[in-house]
């Protein structure tokens, strides 16, 4: 790398952005964990998942990260028998989002850990930068 220190800032920033997006998606899943369909027998909220990919930064030859896409989780919906429910079909079955709150909470914690780690790198790169500049001070 021609300038590894400034690359480190860019890399850490890409990490922060990717994990932020991940947290936003998880939060959306949690918020919609019980969102059923508007019409009887219709599909409810479908869980969303993010996938990461490495992207090469031309300027610095650095391996940044980015969210490749936000996709829908194709796993089947949960079902409950509740004929009184407005979204129940003609058999009285309600489809519920394929969201597991515990899984989402764990994912949120992991995303936060990764976010904090990139943030720590950002701070340390800043420190390294300051130490180098200080060489020129009397």
């Amino acid at each position: 790398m021609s300038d590894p220190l400034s690359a480190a800032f860019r890399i850490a920033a890409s990490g922060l952005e990717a994990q932020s997006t991940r947290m936003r998606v998880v939060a959306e899943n949690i918020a919609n964990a019980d969102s059923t369909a508007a019409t009887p027998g219709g599909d409810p909220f479908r869980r969303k998942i993010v996938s990461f990919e490495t992207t090469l930064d031309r300027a610095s030859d650095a391996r940044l990260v980015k969210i490749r896409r936000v996709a829908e989780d194709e796993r089947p919906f949960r079902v409950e028998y509740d004929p009184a429910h407005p979204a129940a079909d003609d058999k009285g079955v309600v489809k519920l989002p394929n969201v597991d709150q515990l899984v989402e909470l764990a994912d949120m914690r992991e995303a936060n850990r990764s976010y904090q780690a990139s943030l720590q790198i950002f701070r340390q790169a800043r420190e390294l930068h300051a130490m180098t500049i200080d060489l020129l001070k009397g």
Partner: protein
Amino acid sequence: MTDLFALGERRLDWLTTRQSTIAENIANANTPGFRPRDLRAFVDLLDAQPVRLAATHPSHIATGARDEAGGHRAGPAQAWETTYSGNSVALEQELMRASETNRGAAVATSVMRAFQRMTLLNLKG
């Protein structure tokens, strides 16, 4: 190497390169197929001639490091790197390495600043 300042600069080059390698490992902790990297020990590199590593893995992109004139030199950056044997990134380990790197930079910069000050004083005296 008798020139302390040149050695200090090489040390800072190594330290900043290592810091950005660690940043890559952390940022890509959730990227499938990502291979975390580290640099070879600094002392091992002091006598090493720059060598162009063959691309042994698809993730090893064979680009050379740029020297100051903007040209490419036979990649010492690749020659510095090794690959972990494990296939996952342990955030805590990476953060520990990052701390270690910053401590190394504190030592290097302190030493360089002290010797600069002493050299200038010696000349003024």
